């Protein structure tokens, strides 16, 4: 019995780490830039493919390809915001209109990125195996090395990111912009640059998540949407815009999923949706929100 509980908890934590990393980027993009990025999963897919290419074609260690993948996708996100969302923000009359329009623009982006990926990498399924062996810490408990690494990297990335937001000068600007864009602008924060940076950082997190996801799952051009959905669920769970909340939300969702799939695997996804919808109704600010 204790072993079963332990198994459920460990499985939940391991997958929860991935969920958390998937969601943090979206949380930032929505929380500060107010863009509900439906194409979030597409950035994850790009990260996965870049990692796959650098590992399979150039033999670069997947963990090192974070250094290639991160900046590339950051620039993509940054430029996209300046070219697209900045304009939508100016032409939209209300914040609600901006949220709606930018979400729909993201839907268009999703189509574009998917098609480009199919043209570059082909539509077929890709994958590689890295650190795919068990690690034992004694006592009979066995953990998968790659998922353990993923969890560790996810935790590190989230902590670094959290510190960046709470300690650095740029991070403070971002937080100010998130809380009160107008005042931030008054005190000399270049709001468009900050929002673009935010969107870029969100994309960067998605790219890193893609790197880690590709270590555990297959990669294909159409894989994005399922990750987007998970990210949205986690973000709602943790409270929109809260980095810490998203991290905890991811872990929580992992635990819930692990528990439900232990009892009735057919209802795992249904339980995700149900929990998330109930939460939206009862406490839209998320479990960890104010």
């Amino acid at each position, binding site marked *: 019995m204790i072993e079963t509980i332990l198994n459920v908890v460990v499985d939940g934590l391991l997958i929860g780490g991935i969920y958390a990393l998937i969601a943090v980027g979206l949380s930032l993009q*929505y929380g500060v830039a107010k863009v*509900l990025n439906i194409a979030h999963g597409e950035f994850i897919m790009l990260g996965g493919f870049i990692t796959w290419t650098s590992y399979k074609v150039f033999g670069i260690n997947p963990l090192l390809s974070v250094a290639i993948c991160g900046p590339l996708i950051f620039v993509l996100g940054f430029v996209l915001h300046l070219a*697209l969302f900045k*304009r*939508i923000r100016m*032409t*939209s009359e209300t914040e*609600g*209109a901006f*949220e*709606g*329009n930018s*979400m*729909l*623009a993201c*839907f*268009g*982006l*999703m*189509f*574009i990125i*998917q*098609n*480009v990926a*199919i*043209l570059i990498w082909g539509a077929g399924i890709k994958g590689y195996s890295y650190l795919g062996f068990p690690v034992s810490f004694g006592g009979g408990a066995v953990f998968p090395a790659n998922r353990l690494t993923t969890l560790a990297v996810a935790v590190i990335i989230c902590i670094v990111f959290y510190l960046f937001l709470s300690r650095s000068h740029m991070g403070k600007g971002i937080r100010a912009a998130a809380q009160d864009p107008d005042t931030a602008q008054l005190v000399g924060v270049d709001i468009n640059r900050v929002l673009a940076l935010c969107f870029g950082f969100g994309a960067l997190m998605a790219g890193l998540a893609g790197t880690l996801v590709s270590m555990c799952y297959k990669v294909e051009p159409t894989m994005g*949407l399922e990750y987007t*959905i998970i990210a*949205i*669920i986690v973000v*709602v769970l943790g409270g*929109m815009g809260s980095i810490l909340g998203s991290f905890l939300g991811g872990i929580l969702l992992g635990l819930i999923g692990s528990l439900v799939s232990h009892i009735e695997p*057919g*209802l795992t*996804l*249904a339980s995700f*949706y*149900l929990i*998330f*919808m109930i939460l*939206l*109704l009862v406490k*839209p600010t998320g479990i960890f929100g104010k």
Partner: protein
Amino acid sequence: MILKSKRLFYLLCLLLFLLIMLLSPLYTSDYFLILVSNILMYIVLTVSWTIFSGPTGYISLAPAAFFGIGIYTSAIMGSQFSLPVILATGAAAAFCCALLVGMVTLRLQGIYFTIFTFGLVELLGEVVQWWEVNVTGTTGRIVPGTEYTTVYYTMLGIAVVLMLTAYIIKHSRYGLALQSIGEYEEAAGHTGVNVTALKIVSFAVSALFMGACGVIMATRWTYIDPSIAFNPLFSFLPVLMAIFGGVAHLFGPVIGAVIFSYLEEFLTTQFPYYYMLIFGVILVIAIVYLPTGLTGLIRKLGGRLRRRHANT
């Protein structure tokens, strides 16, 4: 006087157009009917989406859910019942589901409402899937096909009734009240209309047409399963079409649906390998440069022309 005759002229044009549509099975090809039925499907989904979401500004991503309910009703009742019975049941089922959803989502604002409705599509798909696997023991269902003309006329009928409904709602005091919800929800209460009930009912009315649309489309698809019926694409496309056409005017969504569904037909057949790329680019450009949609642009251009005319 001038206004009256102008309105009469428009009305006559519409009637003539309707007559042409009614008679078209006599002189057009089968595929033309299929194509037009498909366009009508998008018109129905888009216009019915606009009934609620247009004036209130609540972006609903639930169309696929109500559409899917219609599709599944059609698949379950399939061969045992006649089409009108299935149509009524499917529409009623979607209506009731929307009433329920409307009631529970009253408190949700903005993006939370959007996400909730999107979750609804996925949840329904998962639950139906689980139900089919564990209770009925299968998931795929064959839907008996119908004649092209039956589909065409039914679709046309739904579209006409929908347009009339949308017109009546828009030009009644309920339409005004809905509009005021979009502008300032708290103030809307002062117009003397029960805002809460209005919101729920108009949401349900829009679902009713989506459900009916699903019932008839399923007969064209011949085979369905939960992932086919509850395809999130049918949530996004109506929204995009409506925004593209412009929601301020009743004909905006119609124009958007016609152009988009034709564009889709053209791209998937002529540029099958670049369909998503071209479609995506057009979408993004439309949203960035046409925030008020095509009708908004036409009105703006029209206004400019008139002004220039007045100057000379």
